[in-house]
């Protein structure tokens, strides 16, 4: 089983910044279909700060780095996405204090803890048409591979496919949380931009492994292009 180095996690964060900044307007357009149309801009505002202040973010260990990122995301990502995404990073940071490499099992545990934190913070559950509908199946894939072959890239690429499938699987659901919930039935037949964002980020991580896949959901295909 290969360990995941801090350097690799740093690269994943840089990739995430690129993904979010590239899709700033597209994610907002998707949000505009049922929400208030600011998701892409909110997310990009935070990740632009991370990108700009990258050299100042502490790199002593993975936990210190992720904690700083959590603070920047909470502070600069607008609306409820800031505390929600910030909580995810915070939970991951708490499990990686003092570590400079992690196992795939530890990565799965970080995501598991992030999911619990996000659920507690925002009160959403599976099927509420939020980013949790992507993160929960992704967590399953990471656990499977951690218990099995331990192949990090294979795990990430299957996780990307699982998040991607969540876009279409939740498309017809009515949102129960976040701004989209306020339009009720109107949120059906629209993709959730948070789920699209998670799937896109994972597809880009998979590309970093040299294993680019063709997305299923039309929105993810557009966002990864």
């Amino acid at each position, binding site marked *: 089983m290969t360990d995941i180095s801090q350097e690799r996690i740093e690269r994943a964060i840089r990739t995430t910044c690129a993904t979010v900044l590239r899709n700033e307007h597209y994610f907002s357009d998707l949000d505009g279909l049922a929400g208030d149309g600011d998701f892409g801009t909110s997310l990009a505002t935070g990740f632009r700060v991370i990108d700009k202040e990258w050299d100042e973010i502490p790199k002593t260990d993975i936990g210190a780095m992720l904690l700083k990122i959590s603070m920047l995301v*909470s502070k600069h990502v607008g609306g409820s996405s800031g*505390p929600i995404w*910030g909580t995810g990073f915070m939970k991951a940071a*708490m499990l990686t204090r003092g570590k400079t490499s992690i196992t795939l099992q530890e990565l799965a545990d970080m995501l598991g803890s992030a999911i619990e934190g996000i659920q507690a913070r925002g009160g959403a559950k599976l099927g509420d048409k939020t980013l949790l509908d992507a993160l929960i199946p992704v967590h399953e894939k990471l656990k499977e591979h951690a218990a099995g072959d331990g192949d990090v890239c294979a795990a990430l690429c299957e996780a990307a496919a699982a998040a991607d499938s969540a876009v279409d699987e939740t498309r017809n659901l009515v949102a129960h949380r976040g701004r989209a919930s306020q339009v009720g039935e109107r949120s059906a037949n629209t993709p959730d931009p948070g789920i699209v964002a998670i799937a896109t980020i994972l597809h880009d991580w998979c590309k970093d492994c040299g294993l680019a896949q063709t997305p299923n959901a039309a929105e993810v295909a557009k966002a990864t292009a």
Partner: protein
Amino acid sequence: MKKFVNDPAQFVPEFMKGIALANPGLLDFNAEFQMVTRKGGVDKSKVSIVQGSGSGHEPAHVMAVGPGMLTGACQGAVFAAPPVDACYETIKACNSDAGVLVLVNNYQGDRMAWDMATELATAEGINVRQFWINDDVAVEDSLYTVGRRGVAGNFFVIKACGAAAEQGKSLDEVEAIAKKVNDNVRTMGVALTSCIPPAKGTPIFDLGEDEIEVGVGIHGEPGRRREKIQPADQITEELFEAVASDIPFNSGDRVAIMVNGLGGTPITELYVIYAKAHELAEKAGFTVVRNYVGEYCTSLEMAGASLTILRLDDELEALLDAPAETAARIF
């Protein structure tokens, strides 16, 4: 817009600097986290009381720091929750062996920021708890809340908890006092005009020349209804009825009454409201043992007022009587 503002982005740091410079013997100011703490550091043998919320409500929050009141507070931008790192640093700066109690007004942004900060501080081994204040009877849910909003009743929670902490009460006891105050305090406000956040430069809501917003929130959020301006006594009756019927208060109750200015109403008008509120309280069989007329929780320059009634018992009365010193002094 005519305001005493240089750069709207610097409005909060600039007024905080002014408060710090005006109170050198009382406050320490940390510009990076827009945080003030009591001069001379934390008494580790006593529970620390902490708060932090958006700016624009002064003297609420930062100006309520001092002996017998808050131990420390941090400010967000105007009407925006403080960032998580500021909340976390405030808890750390106020860390005490007796524990830290964070008094959070019930708004989603504030709650999420303090939730995260509390979780981080707990992981660091700090004994910290949160208590949510929600005294506004106007609406059940609002633009920024699930559940009722925390407004001027916040003052009484701070005052009672600050006094209890000063007396050396434990974290459990101070938390129980917060709950007792919150369970027995009710508020409703009314706006005659909107307010203008400096960075926005325009009123946050439109109110006709002859209209008032009954049940307004301290960020200009909608209340119960909009109606035509009426004589002060009628408006006061409406507020009194809404507040007094809520718990409900009962004949024979000993109460404190607060008439709080929202920022743009002269104190004389607040006393016009107080006169009627006092009369209505006596008519309802309440004994008014303390009163508070002035600005405690504002909404920038909004003209308007809120009425708060707090039911007292011997314990709360003694806590309100205890000495306290803050930057919001009048002498």
